[in-house]
């Protein structure tokens, strides 16, 4: 490889992104909302049609339904029909039988006793000498119900705690709710993806759900953090361009982080094997939608909310949960000097505000004390 362009201290990129000429993400927000719906609605339709057709909107695994699942490896040639014939002998012709790859078969049945299970394994070994048990799960119905409750409870508690945290850190419920709408979007996308692909939902799906929650909110916070930072600097810039500028400034980071995360978990999807593939699939979808929604949904919702409350003419600080719309920003520099980073946060003051000396326009950002 040769020394190519862009190397060294050329300062070639020292210019700044000019907001005026920058890509207007926020202005096109109807498109982004439409794109989100275009992704979510097919998932919802799949949920509905699967529900109507076989009362299983999602492909719930035995972890949630209770029952038995059995994974066998058979290196001789075989078909799903052969396995079904075998299961018929046990009166289990209605079992879910899936072949994965050339040598593995996955069998899911209603709850069986251990001796019935052993009988099936023994029969398979008698039928195919190469048959070997890879994995066997028996889950009682009581466990399935518990897991379902835990999943719902876990997601609910996680969401509430995160809303509280964001509300505190951004001094505005508005940011928290916008972040949560984006998260809801991501959950719908992921669930829709599982409905469309009919991938099995098992206990590891809990891990997927909470990764969505963690990543989606994390990514949104980084962008909101930038909005917060800019709000504390340029009190005269209207809200919408300010948000757009903030999104653009945080864009590279969002894309790069999503990129490295997808590269990493994509490797698991491709090379990690059947057992972990569904989880990896869920994680890849989570990261892509999480990255998308924080750029294209969360910030847009903030702006729409802002316009909406302006139209309604909500006075500053009125109404429960309304952020302090027009609040003179505190002297951030003094606050920062006083008590380190956390005290340096400005309230979520939105555009307008008291006239105050504008910082040097060419130096866009406050220079915090090192």
């Amino acid at each position: 490889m040769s020394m190519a362009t862009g190397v060294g201290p050329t300062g070639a990129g020292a210019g700044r992104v000019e907001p005026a000429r920058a890509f207007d993400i926020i202005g096109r927000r109807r498109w982004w909302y439409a794109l989100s719906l275009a992704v979510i609605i097919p998932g919802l339709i799949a949920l509905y049609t699967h529900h109507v057709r076989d009362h299983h909107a999602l492909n719930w695994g035995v972890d949630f339904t209770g029952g038995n699942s059995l994974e066998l490896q058979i290196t001789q040639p075989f078909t799903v029909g052969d396995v079904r014939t075998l299961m018929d002998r046990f009166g289990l012709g209605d079992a879910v039988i899936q072949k994965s790859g050339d040598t593995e078969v996955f069998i899911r049945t209603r709850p069986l006793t251990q001796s019935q299970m052993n009988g099936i394994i023994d029969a398979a070994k008698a039928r195919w000498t190469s048959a070997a048990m890879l994995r066997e799960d028996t889950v009682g119905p009581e466990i399935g119900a518990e897991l379902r409750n835990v999943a719902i409870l876990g997601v609910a508690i996680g969401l509430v705690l995160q809303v509280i945290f964001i509300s505190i850190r951004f001094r505005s419920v508005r940011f928290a709710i916008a972040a949560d709408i984006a998260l809801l979007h991501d959950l719908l996308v992921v669930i829709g993806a599982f409905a469309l692909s009919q991938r099995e939902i098992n206990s590891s799906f809990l891990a997927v759900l909470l990764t969505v929650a963690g990543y989606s909110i994390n990514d949104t916070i980084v962008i909101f953090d930038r909005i917060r930072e800019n709000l504390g600097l340029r009190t005269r810039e209207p809200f919408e361009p300010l948000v757009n500028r903030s999104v653009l400034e945080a864009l590279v980071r969002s894309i790069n982080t999503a990129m490295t995360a997808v590269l990493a978990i994509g490797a698991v999807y491709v090379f990690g094997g059947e057992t972990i593939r569904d989880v990896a699939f869920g994680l890849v979808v989570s990261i892509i939608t999480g990255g998308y929604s924080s750029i294209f949904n969360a910030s847009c919702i903030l702006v729409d909310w802002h316009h909406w409350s302006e139209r309604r003419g909500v006075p500053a600080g009125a109404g429960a949960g309304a952020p302090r719309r027009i609040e003179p920003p505190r002297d951030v520099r003094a606050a920062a000097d006083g008590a380190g980073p956390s005290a340096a946060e400005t309230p979520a003051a939105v555009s307008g505000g008291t006239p105050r000396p504008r910082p040097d326009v060419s130096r866009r950002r406050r220079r915090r004390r090192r």
Partner: protein
Amino acid sequence: MKLSNPVRLAGVIVIALAAFLIAFQPIRLQGSVPVLQAPQPHLNLGLDLQGGSHIVLQAEPTAQTQVTNDSMDGVLKIIRNRVDQLGVAEPAITRQGTNRILVELPGIQNPQRAIDLIGKTALLEFVDTAAVSLPQGTQWKDSTTAVLPDGSAQHVAKNVILTGADLSDAQVQFDQYGRPQVGFTFKSSAAKKFEDYTTKNVGRYLTIVLDNRVISSPVIQSPIPGGKGVIEGGFTLESARDLAVLLRGGALPLPVHVVENRTVGPLLGRDSIDRSLHAGYVAIVMVGLFMALYYRLAGVLADAALGVYTLILFALLTLLGATLTLPGIAGFILSLGVAVDANVIIFEKVKEELRGHKTLRASVATGWSRAVVTIFDSNTTTLIGAAVLLWLGTGPVRGFAVTLILGILTSIFTAIVVTRVFVDLILDTGLAPYIQSLASAGRSAAGAAPVAAGGSAGGAED
């Protein structure tokens, strides 16, 4: 951060080295003499990776016995006895909630047999069935009705003379034809009772019943003194051995049934490890390449910090005795991708500072301190999610949560501290201009990333 660069570098090296020693244990103490050995991870592998059974038993109250702390402890003790007989290397038997017992059997070769053995109530009864001989497999429905193997019901009073609790020992024996049978010995008080009973009932049938199922129904040919006897029931060597184990351990005070059984065969476990390792290598290389191509020298430094991250995370997991599960590995690999996030945030802020025409040193300092707030806020939300997962989840899902939490904390440390040490060191050398080139990262790279950035990465190694 007031320490001089060489001191901070030394600190990072010491931490990395300590992490390596803990995680891979290349040195082992033999007595008091340190010996070198091939470095390899010393993490506990979950049952889904090494193969084995994870079995949850739930106890049910009976008319006689309630589910209490005491009765559950009794169940636990007996199950532990039985498991010990299985010869599993490191079984774990723990109570779970009020009425459940979790049995974990790593690396077990024959899980079906194990479940059969530990889940049996194993209530042995010697029943006086008077003039009736019942065929093997007959099942008592209640205390007066027995269902024969052909499905027909027969009225037989279940008159229990002695039970398994009266036994002091049970062993496998062989009859004169070499067929396995189970020999038993009564405790002394029961021995007397047994002798009296057999003396009075010669010619009648003494039926031997295990968990309400008839094993055999022999006729009493002569009085049996000495409190010894045998059970014959067409046993295989293995089934005779299992019955002896059950009888020695005694009956469970409460019947249990399996509510959850997750068994992974040794084949799949091995396969999962190989595949996840493969995926892990690919992930590290891809993430490393991406960072180096995009952020050039700074990216290479972040990659070095990512190496330190991997070492520290392994060491922490080893120290905590955490168990590595398959979802845990997925979490670990995902964390590799997300670990560089903190560095991405920092580099992006440094880049902005540089484009604002600040000096390199000032940009690095300001970029770092601005990024700390962002990193704190964004990671706390993920930590909240992971903490909930840890609190509510079970087994493998908890493994995922532990890996995620430790990964986040470690990545914050390596991005903020370790990468900074590397960057500061470079700033003191002639390579500083290559950090300066952060200012153009993503600009020239945006169009033709591999070519342009690849060149600079190559240059950085000069």
